[in-house]
């Protein structure tokens, strides 16, 4: 066997260790395994590659895909990542650490999670945040699962049809197996219909309602009156949010929401074909004991210094086992650091500027696309960086043509529209080039 860099074993080392154990060979260590189940075949894997061969191979795969200018959002937003962010998150003390159970040698992780929780609370206006969830849709599904346990004798959760499709599907999957009955609130002119919600609430069995802040059509929903209507029927109000947009938009707390969830990806996490991202969840303090996942708290050590540790662990799976209401353990800690560093660099001014530019760019594109005569407007409601139009040309062919021209744009939606998004990364020149291609379609 040729030496291999991840195995430090010399032949002499192996012999010395076997001798201490009193075993004749490595195979002897598996003497208790029934012969029938020991694998005797050949693994269908390539020959071991050198590091250079591995690098070249992935480089060839990486170069296979055209590098398109992204003009689509739908839950994954192409915001700029400052160089400091990956620089810090790739520090091995953060990257190669385990979950911070040993607080004495994990203060770095614990401190940034505490900062992350503080930032999520600032953005949402809510009282408490957990240490992170997998992604936005699973955070939404966990919030839906929380609702019946936060209310008395209510079982049904209402889901707005204006949520992103993948958020609705993930909620449906979790709820099907967990045994939560879902109801749906229809969309009216592109936003959650308050009348339909009130009709459903009047049935008296509603534990919670989940509604987006910015919805699948990019429209900023006006949630006036939602909290009162939901609370009057004893339900929990859950808002699904884009945290980057929350730097400027009315907060879940201001709308009267009890729980806020969403995907932290918009806070500078690269698209990376869908992950890793980071889900967030914040709530009012009344529901702290129902909050899933890990939570970091401040305390003192035996020498009186300000320190941090995992806290309120009695809620968690490793203590509660089959009585647990959530099974989450590993979450997306490093991605929480990612958004914490990003939000620190950007600050309130930077996040406002990101929103201002994205919003201006999106409205410019919206007007220019309508001028091409290839689309009709669908909704006349306020949007931030994302919008839909009704295509008057073949949508699939349009998307293909734009891709050939170097753009990912005009993604067809399930409703028969096409969706666009503009972030601060996109320039006017790129936008004009996109519009010029559309004109040819």
């Amino acid at each position, binding site marked *: 066997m040729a030496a291999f860099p991840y195995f430090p074993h010399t032949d002499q080392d192996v012999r010395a260790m076997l001798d201490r154990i009193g075993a004749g060979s490595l195979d002897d260590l598996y003497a208790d395994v029934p012969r029938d189940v020991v694998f005797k075949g050949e693994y269908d894997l390539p020959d071991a590659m050198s590091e250079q061969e591995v690098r070249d191979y992935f480089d060839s795969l990486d170069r296979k895909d055209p590098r398109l200018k992204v003009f689509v959002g739908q839950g994954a937003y192409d915001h700029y990542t400052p160089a400091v962010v990956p620089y810090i998150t790739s520090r091995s003390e953060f990257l190669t650490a385990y979950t911070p159970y040993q607080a004495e040698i994990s203060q770095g992780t614990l401190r940034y999670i505490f900062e992350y929780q503080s930032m999520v609370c600032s953005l949402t206006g809510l009282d408490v945040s957990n240490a992170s969830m997998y*992604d936005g849709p699973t955070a939404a599904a966990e919030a839906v699962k929380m609702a019946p346990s936060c209310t008395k004798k209510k079982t049904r959760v209402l889901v707005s049809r204006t949520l992103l499709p993948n958020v609705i599907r993930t909620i449906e999957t979790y709820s099907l197996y967990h045994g939560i009955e879902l109801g749906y609130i229809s969309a009216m002119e592109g936003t959650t219909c308050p009348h339909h919600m009130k009709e459903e609430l009047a049935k008296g069995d509603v534990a919670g309602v989940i509604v987006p802040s910015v919805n699948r059509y990019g429209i900023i929903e006006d949630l006036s009156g939602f909290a009162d209507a939901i609370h009057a029927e004893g339900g929990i109000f859950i808002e699904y949010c884009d945290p980057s947009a929350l730097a400027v938009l009315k907060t879940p707390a201001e709308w009267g929401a009890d729980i806020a969830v969403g995907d932290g990806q918009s806070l500078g996490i690269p698209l990376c074909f869908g992950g890793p991202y980071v889900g967030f969840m914040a709530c009012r303090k009344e529901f702290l004991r129902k909050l899933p996942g890990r939570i970091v708290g401040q305390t003192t050590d035996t020498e009186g210094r300000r320190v941090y540790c995992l806290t309120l662990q009695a809620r968690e799976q490793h203590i509660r086992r089959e009585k647990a209401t959530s099974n989450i353990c590993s979450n997306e800690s490093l991605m929480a650091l990612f958004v914490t560093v990003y939000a620190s660099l950007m600050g309130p001014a930077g996040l406002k500027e990101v929103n201002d530019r994205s919003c201006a760019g999106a409205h410019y594109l919206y007007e220019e696309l309508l001028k091409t005569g290839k689309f009709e407007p669908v909704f006349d409601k306020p949007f931030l960086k994302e919008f839909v139009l009704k295509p008057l040309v073949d949508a699939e062919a349009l998307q293909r043509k734009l891709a050939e021209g170097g753009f990912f744009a005009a993604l067809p939606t399930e409703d028969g529209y096409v969706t666009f998004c503009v972030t601060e990364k996109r320039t006017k020149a790129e936008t004009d080039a996109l519009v010029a291609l559309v004109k040819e379609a």
Partner: protein
Amino acid sequence: MRYYDRLIFELSKEGRVGYTLGKSSFGESGVASFVPSGLLRAEAPALPQVSEVDVVRHYTNLSQMNFGVDTGFYPLGSCTMKYNPKINEEIAGMPGFQGLHPLQSPSTVQGALQVYSEMEKALCSITGMAGFTFNPCAGAHGELTGLMIMRRYHMLRGDLQRTKVIVPDSAHGTNPASAAVCGLQVVVVKSKPDGLVDVNDLKPLLGDDIAGIMMTNPNTLGLFEKDIEEIASLVHGCGGLLYYDGANMNPLIGVVRPGDMGFDILHLNLHKSFSTPHGGGGPGSGPVGVCGKLLPYLPAPRVKYVDGAYSLDFGDERCAGRVSAFMGNFGVILRAYAYILMLGRQNVRLVGKYSTLAANYIKESLKDCYKLPIPSVCKHEFVFDGLLDDGSRKDGQGNVVREGATTLDVAKRLLDFGYHAPTIYFPLLFHQAIMIEPTESESLETLDGFIAVMKKIAAEAAEDPSILKSAPHNAPIARPDETTAARQPVLKYSDTIQS
């Protein structure tokens, strides 16, 4: 490692920024020009206002209070803290992959889809399963997904009464929690004194209300469940399915395949067995593999290869559903695939054997100082039940005159010597459990160093446990007051200002 006492918020000064955005090409209008004020927040969020230098120094200082695999040895049972190869990081950071939007049409992401497809083939070969989904983002997420597949299978066969799942008493805490979240009732099967599942205790539990059994093999005591074939045939015989918790897959890599033991569904932790960094608690990746008959139940979407091109398969009505936003943590999958290609079919055969060798070496070297409840050959990990002599002393009347050192004290003392603590107080079968898992990454010298320190700590305890009880002495902080943390929660910066 040294103590550093600041929060980023405390470095904030009005007007400082850590970014540049350049000149806006769309003019000066912003959100306020397009969005009615009634939809906007009243005040800007209380985020820090800091310079780039502030940010870099602050987080560098924080990092220096942290221990990682690159700092030192991590004998953390059931966590498989192996070395995280650096080439993997470079590959995950390649600019093309980083820029791919998850909803791009398949024709524009053929390279990324090829990674999924080849990785699926590699994992099938290593595990003996027929196909995988990569959509779960962590091990527990994979467990939940696997149980959803189990339930979906029974539901669509009209076997609606199969609502119970059998879990051994030694199981990881996530097993019963995942079952409960999936709407299944947990039935516990006992272990025998030798630590293995008691087949006689299992038999009466089996019936037409059993959806399946969740097992990890080797189990959390590091013991190979050698009756696995009988267990598989019994569970299959009653119409149930076998779920394999891949948290303990490492010792089997290259030796035994779960598919060949009769398992129908499994999850793997790419952040354990396949070398991707743990990240201080994620991102992980928990791909779920199934046997042939369960392929249609895998969550959507999956990558398929037809007529020379990769595309997405959204399945049919049998599909268990959507379990995450897109197709899981692509960045983690890239790292794990790079690791597998480095291993190749030659080195893959040694991963399990070397991890098992290391665990048995430590076990045999320390059994004279620590209680070893189950002496048989272990796999990748094993459990001590505290110190043989914890230093407690009694007077002639049997009154305790000196408290002994506990497992917690041993763990905290280890930190002083530059080692991470083992997993403690788990599994629940023993009161003073110390669960040790080295991996194939560690050299003989590293293991010997750890053994010497564990012996020194045992000697210290016997002589005077107080040095253990007040440990750690050399860490950046001393033991935190966890009771106050839970009773008077301070969970965000603004709480600290008020208090």
